[in-house]
């Protein structure tokens, strides 16, 4: 199968996935008890008021009608209007998306070179001291949940020692990069373990593989052998894992956003669900679904380029 044809097929499949996900999400949010009107009314659940809110938000329309309206708007490229702010969703989510995107980009920029380098170092002497240290630290770090690490880092570096700002409260993230340091450390902790472990395993495999042995027979040695001949093959599985990490980051890591006060997509989703703002929940799901499809497509294409003989991994 040629690459363009394969990519087109994948895109079509992705569209189907997005449609499926939004339908499921719509049905599930409908199944939740209480609608936006009840949540808005809060501790003042005057029935007349709830009815008025419902009418104002068009919640008195049947569910399928609202879903169809929403879908028609979506096909026109309109993500709809928030039930809570009554403003276009795109307008309000742009800032959230920017925050999440920035955090994801910075994380990946640090993660990829660092994790790959660590994995290669560990692979240099399998079972050597460095390998054992890297493995032990990785496994230990992997076992710590994000929120625990975040609370620990904030307590020590943010509050006790006062070296770094404990939250990003109201800060322009680019103007004050210091606020990104602690969240970055938390976001890096787990991916750095998986990526470096995978790189190490991939390197060891590649070094034993036919391709590298052949290169050795041709007299290629040292860093050229490692970087040009072993690494590309080793990275194919790493790219797949990296896609998963990217996907995770782009969805907005809710715990990290909440603890460090970075109002990204994760926070937006939590708020939208808790206020039963279904159009916003739907918009976020479309966004996340599209991101997942695109990221995985790119990862497959990259993997194909890196290790053409193995074909596409999935």
């Amino acid at each position, binding site marked *: 199968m040629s690459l363009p044809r394969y990519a087109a097929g994948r895109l079509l499949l992705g569209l189907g996935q997005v449609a499926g996900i939004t339908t499921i999400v719509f049905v599930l949010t409908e199944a939740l008890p209480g609608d936006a009107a009840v949540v808005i009314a809060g501790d003042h659940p005057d029935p007349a008021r709830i009815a008025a809110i419902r009418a104002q938000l068009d919640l008195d329309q049947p569910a399928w009608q609202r879903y169809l309206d929403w879908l028609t708007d979506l096909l026109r490229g309109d993500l709809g209007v928030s039930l809570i702010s009554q403003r276009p969703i795109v307008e309000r989510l742009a800032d959230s998306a920017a925050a999440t995107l920035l955090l994801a980009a910075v994380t990946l920029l640090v993660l990829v070179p660092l994790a790959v380098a660590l994995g290669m170092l560990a692979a240099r002497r399998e079972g050597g001291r460095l390998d054992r240290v890297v493995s032990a630290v990785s496994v230990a770090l992997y076992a710590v949940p994000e929120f625990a690490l975040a609370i620990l880092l904030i307590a020590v570096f943010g509050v006790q020692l006062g070296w770094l700002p404990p939250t990003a*409260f109201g800060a322009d993230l680019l103007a004050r990069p210091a606020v990104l340091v602690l969240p970055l450390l938390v976001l890096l902790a787990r991916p750095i373990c998986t990526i470096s472990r995978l790189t190490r395993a991939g390197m060891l495999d590649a070094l034993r593989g036919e391709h590298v042995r052949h290169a050795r027979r041709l007299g290629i040695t040292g860093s050229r052998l490692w970087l040009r001949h072993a690494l590309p093959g080793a990275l194919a599985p790493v790219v797949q894992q990296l896609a998963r990490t990217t996907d995770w980051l782009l969805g907005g890591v809710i715990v990290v956003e909440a603890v460090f006060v970075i109002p990204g997509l994760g926070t937006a989703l939590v708020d939208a669900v808790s*206020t039963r703002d279904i159009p916003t929940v739907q918009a976020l799901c479309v966004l996340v679904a599209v991101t997942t499809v695109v990221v995985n497509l790119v990862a497959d294409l990259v993997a194909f380029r890196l290790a053409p003989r193995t074909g596409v991994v999935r």
Partner: protein
Amino acid sequence: MRAAFAGGGVNETLDPHLANLFNEASRAKAMFDKLADYGPDVSIQPRLAERWEPSSDLTRWRITLRQATFHDGTPVRAADVLYSYARITDPKRAFRAKASLDLLDLPNSRAVDDRTLELVLKRPFAEFPNALAAFGAYIVPQDADSFERPVGSGPFTFDSWQPGRSLLLKRYDGYWEGAAHLDELEYLISNEESARVNALLAGQVDYAHDITPTTARTHADGGRMAVTRMPNSTMQSLAMKVDRPPFDNRDLREAMFLLTDRQQLVDTVLAGSGQVGNDLYGKGYQYYADDIPQRTPDLDRARFLVDKAGARGLRIPLDTASVASGFVEAASVFAEQAKQVGLVIEPALGNKDTYWKDILNSGVLASYRSGAMPIETHISQRLLTNSTTNATRWARPEFDALYTKAVSSADEATRRQAYGDMQRTLHAEGGFLIWGFADFLVATAPRVGGVSADAPANTLDWARFDKVWLG
């Protein structure tokens, strides 16, 4: 100054008539005014209204406005008030203050001149100033309907806004009550209490709204934050539905009152940050019946009453949810207490998003709380036969008559007498078991001054920044 609040996220609004959350209420009072507002004892203080004068039959109220200006320099006029009230009571919309202002007969109300208006009511109502101070009854300029860049008459003007993140306000030098001390006020948002506190400890913010008693105690002696306690802020109670078994039995309700160890609940659930209640709403507020002796536990009599009601060993579900701090804890502490008199209280955890609507009509016993409002408002919203949020299903024609007597009397002593009589009935056999009043806690950097310590939550001086300064 930077103030950290919990908030509603990116889809929040600056429309003062939609204010609902703490930060929305605080921002509304920073940028807007009401005609009147609640003082520290929840009595009514004139604000944009300089004075009011009812007709002898209490159906026409002549209101004189203060000389005040909106942030664009135009004066606050009677027409702005009429527009604001028309917007709030628009039948097609659902603003929170609508219920309070619904008794206005707007078509017959009129502006006498720019600073005088005559408001006509659909029925006599002596407590009409309560409606002027209602939650969300803010005065906006005539024809204002978009609040992306709000213009109000409050002590701070709008500067910039990133929804869900930050709202920057500047001092309004032309404020009628005198300009604020602060040059700038920035509202920041995090729903994570620990984040608000950490930011305060690290000097990123100067004010952290709504902190837990545990946080207050942890950092009490550190010298890095000062805690302001606003007493009588949140009524803590259990609502018994009196129209159905088992609490249609008056003896059983009295047994519930008597078995409750209020001090233990305050000490454990509120971590000591509060006071015991006497099954009456509005401790410390105007018209509160503090001549009624404080109830103390009497387990022997409670046991006797439980037996008399034939309720020994009765299983009673207690609806609760983590919708307000302390609800679930209070439910389990209370269940332990009830065990001692032979009642089996079974806490049932409900959905926190729909909790208030769920407990309105179903169940028999539910966790309940309320912020500050005048005692009259509490009664009219919750304790009359036609009240829309009557969670105890208290419906007594003679009680309704007492209420009508109170609010249709121009004589203050008559009103006080009627409110006293109503409270005596509720204390003896009402459906609200009000065990305590929680303090509202705010943490500030040590250099912050002027945060009022005697304003219950929801009153004028609570979450108010024009009297606050940075030392």
